[in-house]
C-alpha cells in the first residue's frame, strides 16, 4: 500500500534526522515502530503522512509517487493520531469534531452523520456525542482523536505513543480497539515506548536507531536477541527476561506473561508435589 524508497530527511543546519530508510507497509499490517527518543520515529510517520517531504528518496502510495500529494490528500487514506490529541480539538462537541474531516471531503449530511455515528460507536463514545471535547477524560480524548481519524475511513491508522499517560484500564481498552480495527482490515502503525505492548499486540516491528532502520521483521524475532535490544535502547518485557533466566530449568523463552505463568505453574506444581510426597 505504502512504500518508502531510500528516504532521507534533514533540517538545514542539523545532521540528518533520517538516512536512507526503505520500508513497505502492506494492508492488514499491525506494525510497531520503536526506538530511542530522537531516533526518527515521529519524523518517519510525518513523512508517510506528507507533513514533511523527504530531502532524498521517494514515497509511493498505491504504487504512485506521493510527491504531488499534500497532507490533506494523504489524510483521505491515512489517519494520524498525534501525541497530544487535546491540542488538535477545536470544535464544540465530540460529534462535530469527528464530522470535521468528512465535511471537508464534500459528503452529504446523511453520509457524514453515518460516519460520525459509526466512528463514535467503534471508540465507545456514542454517549458522549454532545460533550465538549476539552472536558473529556484523558482516555476519552485519545479515543475521540481516533474516532476523528476513523470517520475518514483510512486504510492506515498511525498513532504516536497513544498509551503514554493513560492508565492501565484505558490502555487495555485502546489496544483491544486497535486489534479489532486491524482484524477488520485496517493497517495499524503504532509508535510506542511500551515494550510489553510491542511484544503483545503487533505482528511486526521496525526499530529506528539514529535515523536509520535498524530492524524490520517479526516481533518474536526482535525479542530473541537481548544484545541487540540494549544496543537500540530497548528493554526486554519482564516475562522474557525471567524466562530467559530460567532456561536451564527447561523454561521456554517467551514474551507472554500468561504463557510463562502456565509453564511455571506446571513446573512448580511438580515441585510442590515432590515436596508433599517426601513429607509423607
Amino acid at each position: 500500500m505504502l512504500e518508502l524508497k531510500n528516504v532521507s530527511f534533514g533540517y538545514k543546519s542539523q545532521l540528518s534526522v533520517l538516512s536512507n530508510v526503505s520500508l513497505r507497509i502492506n494492508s492488514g499490517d499491525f506494525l510497531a515502530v520503536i526506538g530511542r527518543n530522537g531516533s526518527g520515529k515521529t519524523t518517519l510517520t510525518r513523512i508517510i503522512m506528507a507533513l514533511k517531504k523527504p530531502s532524498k528518496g521517494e514515497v509511493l502510495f498505491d504504487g504512485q509517487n506521493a510527491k504531488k500529494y499534500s497532507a490533506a490528500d494523504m489524510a483521505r487514506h491515512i489517519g494520524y493520531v498525534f501525541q497530544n490529541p487535546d491540542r488538535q480539538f477545536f470544535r464544540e462537541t465530540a460529534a462535530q469534531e469527528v464530522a470535521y474531516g468528512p465535511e471537508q471531503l464534500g459528503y452529504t449530511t446523511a453520509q457524514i452523520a453515518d460516519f460520525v455515528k459509526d466512528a463514535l460507536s467503534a471508540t465507545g463514545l456514542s454517549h458522549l456525542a454532545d460533550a465538549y471535547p476539552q472536558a473529556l477524560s484523558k482516555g476519552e480524548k485519545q479515543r475521540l482523536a481516533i474516532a476523528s481519524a476513523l470517520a475518514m475511513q483510512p486504510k492506515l491508522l498511525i498513532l504516536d505513543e497513544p498509551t503514554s499517560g493513560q492508565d492501565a484500564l484505558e490502555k487495555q481498552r485502546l489496544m483491544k480497539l486497535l486489534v479489532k480495527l486491524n482484524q477488520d482490515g485496517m493497517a495499524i502503525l503504532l509508535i510506542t515506548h511500551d515494550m510489553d505492548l510491542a511484544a503483545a499486540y503487533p505482528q511486526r516491528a521496525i526499530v529506528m536507531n539514529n535515523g536509520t532502520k535498524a530492524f524490520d521483521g517479526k516481533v518474536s524475532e526482535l525479542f530473541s536477541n537481548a544484545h541487540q535490544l540494549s544496543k537500540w535502547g530497548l528493554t526486554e518485557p519482564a516475562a522474557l527476561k525471567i524466562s530467559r533466566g530460567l532456561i536451564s530449568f527447561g523454561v521456554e523463552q517467551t514474551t507472554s506473561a500468561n504463557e510463562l505463568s502456565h509453564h511455571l505453574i506446571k513446573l512448580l506444581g511438580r515441585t510442590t508435589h515432590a515436596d508433599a510426597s517426601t513429607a509423607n
Partner: protein
Amino acid sequence: MPAIALENFNYAYPNCDKTLDNISLSIAKGSFTVLLGPSGAGKTTLCLAVAGAVPQYFGGSLSGTVLVDGKPAKDTPMSELAQSVGIVLQDYETQLVAMTVEEEAAFGLENLGLSRSQINLRVKEALKKVGLAGFEKREVTALSGGQKQRLVVAGVLAAAPKILVLDEPASALDPEGTTELYQLLGDLNKQYGITILAVEHQLGDVLPHADNFILLENGKNIQTGSPEQVLSYMRKEQHFAEAIPPLYQLKLTLEEKTGISFSSWRCECDAIAEISKCLQKGVYLSA
C-alpha cells in the same frame, strides 16, 4: 516529623465537584512514595497541593491541612515552599522558560540569589545527573520530548530540594531513559535521603525503588502501604488490578496456584533467583 502530611484534606476546583475527598496520609522523610490510581483519581491535584499551587494558584475551596516539611502548604508562599519541594509537572513543557539548556537549568538558582560560580557548578552537576552533559548551549526548542523532560528534572535537582514531587516524569521517555531516570531518583533517595513522591502508571518501572504505594480513586485514599501490600490488595479485591505490573502479576498468580510463597520481588532478577531456588529444590527432591 513526616516530609508530607495530609489530614482530612478536602479540595474542589472552582465550580467543580470535590477532587480530593477527606484524604489523610503521611509520607515519611526519606521515603520513595508512588501515587497510583486511574485517571481522574486526584493524583495530580494532590501533587499540586503539596507544591501549594492548589489552592494558591488554582483557587477553589478546601478544608483540612497539608503540611510540607512542617509548613502549612496553603499559607506558605509557593516561592518559600519551593525551597523544600521541587516539582516536575505532568505538562512539563509549560515549565520550560529559557532559551538554552544551561539557562533553563540555572533559572531556579538565579532566583535564589546564588553566586555565578555556585550556579555553574550546580547546573553542571544536575545536567550530568540527567544525562544532558554536553547539551549546555543547545536551544531548548531543539530538544526531543524526552530530553526536555530530563531538562526539567535537572532544573529541579539543581535547586537541591529535600522533597521531589514528580507527576508522570517518564511519560515521554524511551525505555532506557525511563530506567535511567528511576535509577537516578532511587539513588537520590538512598544516597541523599531525598523524599520522592512520584505519580506513575507503569508500576514495573518504580518497583525496584519504591517503598510506599498510595492507591487513590475518585479522590479517596483507597489503600496505603508497602508496594507488596498495596499490589496484593489490588489483586485480591480486583481493584484497579489491570495496573499490577507483569512481574508482580506472575508472582501473585504462581503463589495462588502453587501455594508457594515467595519473598518480595522487585525486579526480574529477584524473580529468577526465587523461582530457581524452588525449582532446584524440586529437582533435588524428585531425584
